[in-house]
């Protein structure tokens, strides 16, 4: 029962880890470039979810100072603020990798990385 209780208490954190691992799996297993970019975004979402949930407490209120009762716990805003930076970074990485995907499709005529590697090998011989 103890384990089950811990699991339920830590549900958010475990879910964050699970999403992260799912994204990593997608990035590693797939050969298709667009699927890899999607997997990267899922990984990022896992990390962001994890960060937001470590700032949260049970029955906590938003950290707005105006009428904050002193005895109620409030949410730690720092992880959410940090993760805004992370979201911006992942958006820009996604944009850049999509633009690379366009260029790759224009020059190779395919989005499959296995085929791209095969075509590249001819050049290095």
């Amino acid at each position, binding site marked *: 029962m103890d384990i089950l209780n811990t699991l339920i208490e830590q549900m958010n954190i475990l879910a964050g880890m699970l999403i992260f691992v799912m994204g990593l799996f997608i990035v590693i297993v797939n050969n298709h470039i667009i699927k890899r970019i999607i997997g990267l975004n899922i990984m990022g979402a896992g990390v962001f979810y*994890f*960060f937001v949930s470590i700032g949260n407490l049970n029955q906590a209120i938003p950290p707005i100072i105006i009428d904050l009762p002193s005895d109620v716990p409030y949410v730690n805003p720092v*992880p959410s603020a940090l993760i805004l*930076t992370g979201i911006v970074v992942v958006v820009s*990485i996604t944009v850049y990798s999509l633009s690379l995907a366009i260029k*790759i499709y224009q020059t190779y005529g395919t989005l499959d990385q296995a085929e791209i590697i095969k075509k*590249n090998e001819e050049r*290095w011989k």
Partner: protein
Amino acid sequence: MINLWLTSLLSLLVAALFVPFFKTKHKRAMMWFSLVVLTFALVAQILIARYVYLNGSFFYAFGGYQGGIGISFLVDEFSVLIATFIISLTWLIFIYGWANIKSDFEKAETARYVNLIFIMIFSMVSMVYTHDLFNTYVFMEIMSITTVAIISVKQKKENYSAAFRYLMLNEVGSLSFLFGIGMLYMIGGQLNISAVALVVQQGWPLYSWNIGLALGLMILGLAIKSAIYPMHVWLPDAHGSAPSTSSAILSSIVVKVYLVVLIKVIYRIFGFGIVSFLGLNVILTVMAVLGMIIGSLFAMAQKDSKRLLGYSSVSQIGYIVLGISLGTPLGLYAAIFHIISHGILKTSLFLSVGSFISEKKIRKTHEFRGLGVKMPLATAVFTISSLGMIGIPITSGFIAKWQLGLALSEISWWLIGVVLLSSLLNAIYYLPIIIDFYLKPNPENQTILTWDGMPKRMAFILIFLALSGLTMGLFPGLIETFIELAVSAI
């Protein structure tokens, strides 16, 4: 003094803003402007290094938020040594690139390239200085975008695919590092490295799962980014297809910055006790040994010279990681010496191959036959540097391997055997190129010595790099004290 140093760091960012506004026909003015800014950064860096050696290390807290609340830079003997190394090497590569830039990509791209270089230097230097974990992550991301962009700036199709692969792996590494930061933040709510180190020491018995996972994720992320052996798959493509100046920067500086962060993570945040308790130092040693051997084996199979140099980097990174994973001051000394020595040697190798490519349009190793009479200077520089890579005495590579051997003799003797075996393998793929240079006839049967035909600036930089490699080998005492101070500062 401190204000001058901060201004020089900011001037790099401001210059990156201004560079794209120069018109294409005003390229010369733009390059002079960039050179002035870089020289300013270099001079300020040397002055701050002098200040630190005279007055001791200090923290600079941005916005005056003391006590780990805000972001602070730690300027000590370790960070100034690495930062001076980064800026001076980039300065040299920039002057070379100015003369060479036309051969690698179109004129219109030059401003964008210089822009990227500026942002990249800024993020590298700041990443070395910063004393805040999340700040490290942010600079890491700036670096991953700029380093990938200086590969894809040469608009060839293999550059696109190499850049994509590099970007994906880089991003996986960054996100694991971020996850590790989250794990550590969960325990103590701290991001300042000193505060996190305290939290880790105090919370180790209670939160060993968190700390172990954080350490694993951080080391995994940095291992991907610094191409430690099983995670090296992106490196040969990226370094092989990039413009020569980019390859030099990527191979000799960028990878090293991540290794410096690895040193910080292992020794400053977690402490070697926790790392060795979890057995991660053994894993790092095994990865380093595999990298030293298998990287060299892969390099022997390469026909393209720049890919060969890329695989050679994989094996040289193995030596550095081996030094880091020992956990002794001697091992760290060897690692830092090897970082600097490999930086200089690999830069001169990539730049001399770059001059072969730009002047004679050849890049396959079998085309290098008899090049010794056609390009005497560049081949001489290549020869000296590759002898340094093998570890022949009087070059800096010998001192680096000697120091590593001294460090290993405290730990175990069979690792010295691995270093010797790897040196032998290095010799197997570097010596045939040197033999091709001087002992084989060239296709045109030219036997009279002719001048290389490259611009004077490029020649000057190549000579300077080869001489500095030799100087480090002949008089290692010149930088010995600086490295010892850096090791004691970690």
